[in-house]
């Protein structure tokens, strides 16, 4: 996914111009330009990286892309004021997690979620299993932008889960609606519907990123 580096930005605004989802915002601060890039909107098309003449926006190959807070998906070249540590998703799930997936319109993300269970990615060795009923589930894992018709089924599934429970938003469209955001179908993602414990950006995210998001939800990965 694209990342913002310390290389000084000339303020040419090429990156914001090519971005299909308005994920990039520029602000003038005296002589310098602040660049912020919201991975919660980014579909990973790489156009900004290709256009940026200064390397201020560059590719970051890391698959540890998930965050616990929505605002941490916004990358910036502004001097970073340290934020308080994000609250952990909760220790009860440190050793095992039962996950109920709800898909709402991103079949590639579904395939990548399935891939986490195969022998290569093997999420089961971390104590994570996918379950059929929300009654057995600790975690609601959502893919797709949650258009109007999936809102009620999704909320019913959430309500059927015992507390404490987590929600993991997998993929750009699940986080914000991505390309669909703002249309009549109100497919604006899951973030405003239920409290989300971890956000996994990407369209679709790599299976390692999905596992990273699950680990963050469990309160692992240093959490």
């Amino acid at each position, binding site marked *: 996914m694209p990342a913002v580096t310390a290389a000084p930005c000339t303020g040419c605004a090429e990156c914001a111009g*090519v971005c*299909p*989802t308005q994920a990039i915002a520029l602000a003038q601060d005296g002589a310098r330009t602040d660049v912020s890039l919201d991975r919660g909107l980014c*579909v*990973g*098309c*790489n156009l900004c990286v290709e256009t940026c003449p200064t390397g201020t926006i560059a590719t970051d190959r890391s698959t540890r892309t998930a965050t616990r807070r929505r605002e941490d998906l916004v990358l910036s070249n502004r001097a970073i004021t340290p934020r308080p540590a994000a609250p952990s998703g909760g220790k009860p799930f440190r050793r095992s997690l039962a996950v109920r*997936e*709800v*898909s*709402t*319109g*991103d*079949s*590639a*993300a*579904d*395939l*990548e*979620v*399935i*891939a986490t269970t*195969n*022998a*290569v990615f093997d999420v089961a060795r971390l104590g994570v299993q*996918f379950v*059929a*009923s929300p009654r057995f589930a600790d975690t609601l894992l959502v893919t*797709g*932008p949650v*258009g*109007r*018709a*999936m*809102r*009620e*089924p999704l909320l019913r*599934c959430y309500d059927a889960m015992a507390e404490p429970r987590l929600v993991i938003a997998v993929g750009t469209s699940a986080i914000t609606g991505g*390309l*669909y955001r703002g*249309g*009549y*179908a109100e*497919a604006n993602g899951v973030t405003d519907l239920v409290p989300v414990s971890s956000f996994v950006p990407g*369209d*679709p995210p*790599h299976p390692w990123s999905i596992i990273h998001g699950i680990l963050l939800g469990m309160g692992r990965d240093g959490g």
Partner: protein
Amino acid sequence: MTLNLPTGSRYQQTETTPEAMAETVRSQLKKPGWRLGHLTARVLANGRLALEALLLDTATGSGVICSAALPDGVREYPSMTALVPAAHWMERAAGEMFGLRAVGHPRWKTLRLHAPVWVPDLAPLESGASGTPIPCEPYAFMKVKGEGIHEIPVGPIHAGIIEPGHFRFSCMGEIITNLEIRLGYQHRGLERRLAEAPLAQTRFLAESASTDTAAGNALAHAVAVEQMLGVTPPPRAEALRTIALEIERLANHIGDLGALAGDIGYNIGPTLFPPMRGAALALAQTLTGNRRQRWYIVPGGVARDIDDARRGEMIEGLNALHKQVRRHVPLILENPGVLDRMEGCGRLSSALAKDFGMVGPAGRASGGRYDARAAFPHGIYPAGAPVAARYTEGDVLARARVRADEIESSIAIIRALLDDLPVSPARVEIAGVLPPNAAGIGVVEAWRGELIHWITTDETGRIARYAIKDPSLNNWTGLAIAVRGNLIGDFPVCNKSFNLSYCGNDL
């Protein structure tokens, strides 16, 4: 409403009336090799609505757009489903999206916009059309009556990791007597978005019609746009696009075979096949920089070229994968225990498959010969199209065999192209505006079958209508018919043997 189609174009337009439309379409479809590509509507410059059928000649890779303007304020027209069964889901979709009523349709109900989630008079694509849209009616499932009949509702959320949709089974004991499939849960307003967004954003939206078919959708979009602009992509681009399309087919067919075995409890499927699918996705990653080949195919060519080092890596990976395919596919398809479960299960007759215009592996497993690669230009095709894999039994096994054959042919195509990649640029610049009153039609054999992106511009060159016909729009009915008389317990394996797209239908 007359379109500006250049002479010598593969597509021509005929104009007719709403009353004569069904007969015009039917008589054209009687000619050998013709099929209904799509049926939808469009808002004309004067604010009226026009019905439009896309009729395709699968022998020559050309077609006819049959247009019929509705009089001002008129919202009804005689349904053509009774004469042309392949139109029945298409008429329902056009009905709710444009506020139309197909009078005499045998099962008139919504396809995507079910009340009460959607307000009954919302017709998202009719804006600008004069007259009041006809409201969608409340959805009622078909009731099967008789002693001992019970209903099993499943979904929208299913037990596994899969897209949402509702299946309503009517069963006698464990035998399915009827299945009604209600989709629409993932309606995202894509077609309207496509007509509103700036052209630079269009390809991103077009590709997202179903994200598991990124190469197929992006290619159908690119073909349609290039056709309108009169652009021919360079030969290297055509080869690279074909490789991407075939990798998508390879990866998904391998995944499907493994999942089919898994659905009958044969563990070789879920154990050996996902890593093989992963090996196919690794080819995609090397080619495009992305396992799912997102944003790779663009109008004018492909987003990035390949160097010899990566090309060599792909050839090596492909050869290793081919060895595994040869070893593992027979474990499923030459195994008496598997054959016992797949043979005769979920049978769809050739006659019904033809009536409903079935496409892709499901169509070719029921005797169909249609493979869009043999007719319509996309990538290196129609030159270099493989011999269509074809079976006539129409059961789960036949659908599995078509996939196994296509895995082999896709590997052969990818290998031949990698071995001898044309030397040319991988992309040409294209104009940023489309011509006025034009139509562009991309027909692609995606891994699920015939996928169509059909663009029509207005008098200023803006996209007035962007219609997408996913292969699943044809094939869902086939699934509903194929499971009749089968055990409810065999539904998962039947369903997987079709493996249709929900979001490609819902848009």
